[in-house]
């Protein structure tokens, strides 16, 4: 018997699948003419993290976030540090059975204020993310997406209705980089960032700086310009340090001075909140008031020893600090 082929419209790949064939993400399969998710309620990683680990620095600081992931991803970044779960089929990971209502119940019982769909790529476990998010809102919890933003507009707009915050990985402003290193494309990611902002999702951006691949100062300058012009100067930006992983073990870790220089340059271009990630103690993790230049949130790694924000404003000068603080 012959079954119909299907086209998945979730992400820009729009995989066309015959019966029993699965999409590029590894977790969506055509079974007898229906597209089936293999990972609904089947996370392979579940943890309670500090929200700073996402990283989200302007969203409920110093709170705990219930974090989960399933196997699979719709990008194939050569530097992926979670490749053991993102670049593998879901039948090859050890999975829990954790339905959305159970996720929410455990998150509440553990004192978490939010749930993060993270580690691999929440887009590819879309239905699980969405259904859990709906229940989370009903229970008074917030929802956080940690994503590469490689998704089509229609599903993204629907997801934005239940998402409160997102850290979007903007890997480079080069489409060639996206194609060559990540098997993706740049434009859908830029579109996603604009859509999220338009839909009222609180956004922070992370850029992983990899030596020789995307550390060109001019490229980074253009990326900061794009953020400044399209999202505004208040959009928090995290420059993150690369550690040799997966298919890029031949490259060295990003020198700390490269990250610090990128931060200085981004702030000189006009971005208010720029951070360095994975180099604890550098001072690049503190939030600085754009007006009086005092440190309004002190951070050491994921530890937050001091918050000097009152009612969303700087405790020293009263300047509004962009973020979700309660």
């Amino acid at each position, binding site marked *: 018997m012959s079954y*119909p*082929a*299907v*086209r*998945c*419209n*979730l992400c820009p790949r729009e995989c*066309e*699948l*015959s*019966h029993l*064939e699965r999409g590029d993400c590894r977790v*969506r399969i055509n079974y007898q003419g229906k597209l*089936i*998710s*293999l*990972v*609904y*309620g*089947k996370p*392979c*990683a*579940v*943890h*309670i*993290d*500090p929200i700073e*680990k996402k*990283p989200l620095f302007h969203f409920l600081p110093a709170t705990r976030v219930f974090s989960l992931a399933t196997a699979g991803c719709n990008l194939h*970044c050569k*530097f992926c*540090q*979670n*490749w*053991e*779960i993102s670049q593998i089929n*879901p*039948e*090859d990971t*050890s*999975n*829990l059975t*954790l339905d959305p209502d*159970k996720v929410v119940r455990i998150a509440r019982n*553990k004192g978490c204020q939010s749930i993060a769909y*993270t*580690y*691999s790529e929440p887009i590819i476990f*879309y239905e699980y993310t969405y259904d859990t998010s709906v229940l989370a809102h009903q229970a008074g919890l917030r929802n956080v997406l*940690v994503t590469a933003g490689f998704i089509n507009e*229609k*599903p993204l707009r629907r997801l934005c209705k239940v998402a409160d915050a997102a850290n979007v*990985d903007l890997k480079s402003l080069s489409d060639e980089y996206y194609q060559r290193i990540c098997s993706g494309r740049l434009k859908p990611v830029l579109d996603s960032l604009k859509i999220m902002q338009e839909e009222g999702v609180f956004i922070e951006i992370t850029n992983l700086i990899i030596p020789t691949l995307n550390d060109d100062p001019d490229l980074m300058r253009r990326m900061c310009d794009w953020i400044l012009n399209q999202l505004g100067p208040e959009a928090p930006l995290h420059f*993150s340090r*690369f550690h040799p992983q997966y298919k890029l073990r031949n490259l060295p870790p990003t020198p700390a001075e490269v990250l610090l220089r990128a931060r200085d340059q981004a702030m000189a271009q006009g971005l208010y909140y720029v951070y360095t990630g*994975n*180099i604890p103690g550098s001072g690049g993790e503190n939030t600085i008031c754009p007006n009086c230049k005092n440190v309004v949130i002190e951070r050491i*790694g*994921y*530890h937050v020893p001091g918050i000097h924000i009152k009612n969303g404003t700087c405790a020293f000068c009263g300047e509004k600090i962009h973020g979700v603080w309660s």
Partner: protein
Amino acid sequence: MSKPDDSKGGLEISRRRFGLGLAAGLGGASIFAKLKNFVKPHTGVSFHEAEFYERIPPDKKISLIEDEK
């Protein structure tokens, strides 16, 4: 030792144990010990109809694997 952040895929899976990838790093304490009271870890997939897809008309040929007969 600094740990990567998870938007970069910073969850460092040190080993898979009892069905959970255990994260290293601050705040990454496994809650498996508690979770196992609620759920039973195992390898397996689910079978949940997805959203956002369409059927391709049979006259449109796609160059993928052959249907099972």
